[in-house]
């Protein structure tokens, strides 16, 4: 899965970029790969992958993100370690880029050291989000994101969902719309995200892409005790 050395996950907040980046990093770590997760989210102040630092470290994922009090700041901090990781030919790196084309500017600032030939640069699409409700919106989002990133996209991840109210129909409809956007952009849909209930209904060979079974990791505090609590100021992780 995503065999290139660098995996960059971009997309509007709410599309599922953080969940997918966490999923990819944890899956790699689970197969014994030494992987670093870069939290390049400079846009949204809450619900960032850095808040899961302890959990990720425990699972063998290195986390590159501001620490201490700066971890909670809404400041456009790009740490020197980000460039180091991208320039290290032996490092397997997953980048969680936050927000929208404006948030993607953080990625653009390190684009000079991104090994484009060894990089999967993937845009996550959720057609149930206000800013990407139509195929036209998604094309605009893709082009604007690419421009801000200063490197081309290599594929799309279809992740249309409504959190706990997602149905298989919503997932499949979103996948078909992502395919339409992909054909307009000349990009493949490389994966489709699905929850536990929808996963068995999807066949990778029919779809022609990976199916990522996404168990929601990041939950609001009122859902904590049902799952194994991880104490961060904002996060519950199961």
């Amino acid at each position, binding site marked *: 899965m995503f065999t290139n050395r660098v995996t960059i996950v971009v997309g509007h907040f*709410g599309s599922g970029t953080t969940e997918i980046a966490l999923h990819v990093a944890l899956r790699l770590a689970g197969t014994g790969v030494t992987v670093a997760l870069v939290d390049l989210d400079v846009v*949204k102040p809450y619900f960032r992958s850095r808040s899961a630092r302890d959990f990720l470290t425990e699972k063998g994922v290195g986390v590159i993100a501001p620490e201490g009090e700066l971890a909670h700041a809404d400041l456009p901090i790009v740490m020197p370690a980000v460039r180091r990781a991208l320039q290290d030919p032996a490092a397997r790196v997953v980048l969680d880029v936050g927000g929208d084309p404006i948030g993607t500017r953080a990625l653009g600032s390190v684009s000079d050291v991104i090994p484009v030939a060894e990089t999967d640069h993937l845009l996550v699409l959720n057609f149930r989000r206000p800013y990407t409700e139509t195929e036209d919106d998604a094309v605009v989002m893709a082009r604007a994101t690419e421009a801000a990133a200063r490197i081309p996209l290599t594929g799309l991840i279809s992740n249309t969902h409504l959190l706990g109210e997602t149905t298989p129909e919503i997932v499949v409809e979103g996948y078909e719309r992502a395919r339409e956007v992909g054909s307009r952009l000349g990009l493949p849909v490389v994966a489709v995200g699905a929850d536990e209930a929808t996963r068995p209904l999807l066949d990778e060979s029919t779809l022609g892409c990976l199916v990522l079974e996404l168990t929601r990791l990041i939950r*609001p505090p009122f859902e904590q005790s049902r799952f194994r609590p991880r104490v961060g100021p904002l996060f519950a992780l199961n």
Partner: protein
Amino acid sequence: MAKKLMKGCEAIGEAAIHAGCKLFFGYPITPQNEIPEYMSHRLPQVGGTFVQAESEVAASNMLYGASGSGERVLTSSSSPGISLMMEAVSYLAGSELPVVIVNIMRAGPGLGGILPSQSDYFQATKGGGHGDYRLLVLAPWSVQEAADLVQDAFDLADFYRNPVMVLGDGLIGQMMEPVEFGAERVPCKLLAPKTWAATGCDGSRPTNIVNSLFLDPEVLEQHNIKLKAKYDRMVRDEVRFAEYFTDEPYDLLLVAYGTVARVCSTAIEDLREQGVKAGLIRPVSLFPFPYAAVRAAAAKAKAVLVVELSSGQMIEDVQLALRGAKPVYFKGRQGGMLISPDEVAESIREVLAGKAAEVVNG
């Protein structure tokens, strides 16, 4: 309309547009920036106007002018920004202007931090600005309820000719949940035409003047008496609350609002499975506070536990409701730290086991 996955801030913006709001004035501050961002994107699409003012002081006075012309107007900010608006809020109330103000609270005092809090309860419900005035204050606990209450807030503001505040903790602004907007919106109040608005006068009607200056003390007193009668009508007619786990017997009553009430609800549900019985009452209107409902619900419990993301500001209203009838306990977190269901469950156990310290005054 199909359900969308929306951040609280986006849902608040869309709700305002759904309620016919065409004007937004504001200034950015975390954690509510997605409201102005959303409005700057959406208002031009519906023929509206978005203005990023040079400060919250300017934005709040732009509200005054725009509301005076009879339009539906919105501003939003977070705690320190709301403090800057307080002079204008008093003027808006004094001039009887309907506006909707959204406060997505962050931790204070001062600049504080950008993480969630409920420490503006006093400011919202007991004043903030000068003079005898009141705001209607509504506190949602979900993204859907935030969308619903913002729409109601516009109707209530117009009905009472008074500013209405929607008070959410930072999570309400930042978390995402599925939201639905009905196709046909029915106002929650029967609304009269705004014959008082300053819309430009061609001499065919008496001049409308929007004003809060009354130099004659007798006239100003009469104005205040009129306002007080209006606030009394709000107290009589606009109390909103919800109860949970109160159909079965309970030993302890929890009082919490906003997302904290959801945390309490999770804790109570978990404890029920273990035979520990607690109920929950959630004030939805913070002004007017549901005194009678809290008193009635507490009558069935041995004690009351208030849970807030503050040092315990709502305790005062709970004590007014109880009039000393039951002991009151408090559990809170501050500084942007959230409270977990486990912490609430632990507090419930401590109170019931007689190990917690009662809130004492003076």
